């Protein structure tokens, strides 16, 4: 793979002066591309005329690898997909396997899955907001949000012993029941987190500089959001009320009372703010889940080697980035015949090339930050 970019010929403007289109390469190692994204930008002066995201710098072939692992051995691979929200890929994959093999899940396990996934949503949104704010110059915000994320990571560590790659949701349930006092800690976190969110809202979204940097930047219309397959906060920022937890509901989500925050302008500011408000809703869901939870087993005993009958299953859940789907095909052997991940970050990042043109080069990081790509999931 070459890193060279062909330059464009000079043209002339209305006064006959030569105008050369400038091609700027950003990435694949750039602090504002959230990992290994690369963007090739064509500039007219300081205005972007053509933007081409180039992905694949983290393509690890997880789909191919899982064809040579047993069904249970694929779970750790799914952790490495979306490394900011590992629980989601775990869950989406496990749901697909459960559908495929007809495994039932105990109720307590469903509640635990909801709790960890909502915590994960907060953690992931904190990361997204912090890095987006950091990119646009508000480094303080990153420190606040990262602090909140760290608290959740600590809770996860207490729960399953790992800070990042949890491997917690397994086919048939979750790996462990919660340790003593864990749920109380989570409740205490939720109570404190609300105040922090309000503070962050004032600190960043109430800030005149942030408004100036984000409002009206990267406007995505609702029609485009649907047609381009955007999901999650990116679609909801444009006013598309589409949340799988509500509209294609799964697990125990119908038992909770929560709202789906949507934006109206579809710009970077709205997308960010939707994330912030989702954290409030996540706190609500966690509190309801903890109060509704009953004692019971957390795992259906399964044989070590699953051999689902030939068939296929698709399952999707609402991850922090959008609808995360996993498609598993079985041919009756202990290994999946095919595993495919429908990655929300991948579909959302494809929007960059229609959102960024027309803005200044400096706005590229604001648009990119508001799309919140995680390259483990984009590239798989």
């Amino acid at each position, binding site marked *: *793979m070459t890193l060279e970019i062909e330059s464009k010929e000079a043209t002339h403007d209305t006064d006959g002066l030569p105008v050369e289109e400038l091609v700027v390469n950003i990435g694949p190692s750039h602090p504002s591309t959230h990992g290994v994204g690369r963007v090739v930008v064509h500039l007219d002066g300081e205005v972007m005329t053509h933007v081409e995201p180039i*992905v*694949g710098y983290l*393509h690890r*072939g997880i*789909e*191919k690898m899982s064809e*040579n*692992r*047993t069904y249970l051995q694929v779970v750790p691979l799914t952790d490495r997909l979306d490394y900011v929200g590992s629980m989601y890929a775990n869950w989406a994959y496990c749901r697909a396997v459960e*559908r*495929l093999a007809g495994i039932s899940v105990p109720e307590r396990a469903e509640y635990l899955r909801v709790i960890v996934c909502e915590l994960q949503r907060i953690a992931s949104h904190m990361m997204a907001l912090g890095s987006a704010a950091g990119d646009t110059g508000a480094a303080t915000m990153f420190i606040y949000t990262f602090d909140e994320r760290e608290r959740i990571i600590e809770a996860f560590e207490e729960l399953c012993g790992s800070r990042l790659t949890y491997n917690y949701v397994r086919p048939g349930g979750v790996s462990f029941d919660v340790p003593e006092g864990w749920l109380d800690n989570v409740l205490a976190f939720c109570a404190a987190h609300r105040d922090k969110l309000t503070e962050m809202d004032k600190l960043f979204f109430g800030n005149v500089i942030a408004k100036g940097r984000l409002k009206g930047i990267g406007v995505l219309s609702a029609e*485009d959001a*649907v*047609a*381009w*397959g955007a999901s999650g906060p990116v679609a909801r920022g444009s006013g598309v009320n*589409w949340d799988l937890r509500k*509209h*294609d509901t799964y697990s125990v989500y119908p038992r909770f009372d929560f709202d789906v925050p949507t934006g109206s302008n579809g710009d970077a500011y709205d997308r960010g703010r939707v994330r912030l408000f989702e954290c409030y809703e996540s706190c609500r869901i966690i509190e309801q889940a903890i109060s509704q939870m009953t004692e019971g087993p957390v795992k259906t005993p399964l044989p070590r*080697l699953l051999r689902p009958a030939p*068939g*296929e*299953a*698709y399952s*999707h859940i609402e991850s922090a980035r959008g*609808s995360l*789907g996993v*498609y598993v*095909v079985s041919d009756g052997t*202990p290994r999946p*015949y*095919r595993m*495919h991940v*429908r990655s929300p970050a*991948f*579909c959302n990042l*494809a929007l960059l090339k229609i959102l960024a043109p027309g803005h200044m080069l400096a706005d590229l990081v604001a648009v990119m930050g508001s799309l919140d790509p995680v390259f483990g999931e984009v*590239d*798989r």
Partner: protein
Amino acid sequence: MSDHLEELRERISELDPTIYPLFSIEFGDAVIAVPLDDLLVTMHRLRELGFDRLGMVTAVDRPEFFVLVYRLHSRALSAGLFVKAKVHKEDPVAPSMFEVWPAADWQEREVFDLFGIDFEGHPDLKRIFLPDEFEGHPLRKDYDHPRVIRRPDYI
């Protein structure tokens, strides 16, 4: 679950009788199996029916053919649907869905990259994940490369 699918089947038969015979239920999911030649027309119809989101495009390498798998969603019908089409192995060409849903843009590039299926009418069909000089299409079952070390069977 199955009530829901029957409902969807009825809705589709009311709305568009031409699609109805293709409708089936496989493994608890609504599936429309289309011959490759009719794929684009059917997709246009489905879009008019209200399937406004293209969720996923992927392929499965079966021994005799590739199966293209599309996952559609409709907010109006609140339903999801699979569309499947067989693609020949010798001449893997399929119509591009870019004009129906622009969401197909990158996902078709991905299928092209990993399976080597050509999409006719795609505006910018090139490898997306792998470097341009990469040889072969790794998600095909017969893909082999000396670099790949196969995992020993522990199980």
